């Protein structure tokens, strides 16, 4: 899981059975104490593999939306909740966003995009690289660094500084820091429910590099199923995403586009291998 704190923006991304939305109230309270008020909110997630294991308020998207509506101030008057579908009911993208009138106008001029990649059914041999060697006594920091190097994660964005950690007995998280931009990878390698995610924030005119970055990501995990959600990306970038993943043998299965306040345009694309 990851947390990023910018002067006027905070991003929290957590897996497992964490109650992420319960962070909103203390967050708004601490921000208010230093003279800051919320003007935009975006909540996103894919389909849980084990939805029945999720605690309140994550028991359903409807519950999550109700909780968000109650937690945010009325000044965030532009609100929208939507489930973006794919060709499979097990793969959809859940989005809630809200913004104030002022932020709605300013955000439309933003040149920053985010890309959220979700991958399941990872290649078994590659997933084994995210298990700690039993009995080596290394800390999560040291094992994390070894995994970063052994898997080639350090080559995805070579200029990024990486903060990595491996969990006992398996699992891996890393944050990449590259100037004003971040990237992050989280891995759950257990066979039967293996999962990896990659997220990147960048400038919209960086389209050309997306091909190379996605190529590396796909080659590190070789997933059977993959979804890519891009927010505020150009049509050109969406095509780069599609082409880069198809070049790695995955087949483009669906593409859904929608508009959201405080987020702009979101494009949700899914891919599977031929054997699916």
């Amino acid at each position, binding site marked *: 899981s990851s947390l990023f704190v910018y002067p006027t923006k905070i991003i929290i991304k957590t897996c497992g059975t964490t109650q992420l939305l319960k962070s909103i109230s203390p967050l708004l309270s601490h921000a208010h104490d230093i003279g800051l008020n919320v*003007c935009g909110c975006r909540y996103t997630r894919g389909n849980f593999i084990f939805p029945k294991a999720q605690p309140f308020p994550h028991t359903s998207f409807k519950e999550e939306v109700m909780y968000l509506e109650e937690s945010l101030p009325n000044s965030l008057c532009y609100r929208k909740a939507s489930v973006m579908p794919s060709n499979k009911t097990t793969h959809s993208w859940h989005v809630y966003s809200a913004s104030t009138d002022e932020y709605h106008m300013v955000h439309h001029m933003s040149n920053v995009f985010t890309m959220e990649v979700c991958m*399941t059914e990872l290649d078994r041999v590659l997933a084994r690289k995210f298990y700690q060697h039993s009995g080596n006594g290394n800390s999560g920091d040291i094992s994390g660094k070894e995994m970063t190097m052994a898997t080639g994660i350090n080559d995805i964005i070579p200029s990024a500084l990486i903060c990595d950690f491996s969990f006992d007995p398996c699992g891996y998280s890393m944050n990449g820091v590259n100037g004003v931009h971040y990237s992050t990878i989280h891995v759950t390698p257990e066979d039967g429910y293996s999962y990896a995610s990659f997220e990147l924030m960048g400038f919209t005119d960086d389209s050309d590099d997306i091909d190379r970055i996605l190529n590396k990501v796909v080659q590190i995990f070789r997933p059977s199923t993959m979804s890519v959600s891009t927010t505020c990306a150009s049509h050109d970038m969406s095509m780069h995403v599609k082409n880069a993943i198809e070049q790695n043998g995955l087949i483009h299965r669906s593409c859904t586009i929608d508009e959201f306040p405080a987020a702009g345009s979101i494009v949700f694309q899914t891919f599977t291998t031929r054997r699916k």
Partner: protein
Amino acid sequence: MAQSGFEGFEKRLELNFFGDDPMMNIGIGLRQLSFESVQEILDAVQCTVVSAMGNQYFDAYVLSE
């Protein structure tokens, strides 16, 4: 598929702020929150910080879970 296991799919929350805090204009703003305040926020989520890094633009934390 296994009957139950560790849920990999993440939930992601992004909040944007505005205000008249003078520290915001010199690249501080939310970054002036104390580590105790950050941990209090993470307590609500059931996470803790396991690793951290930052530069002149932002702070990045790797969390448990």
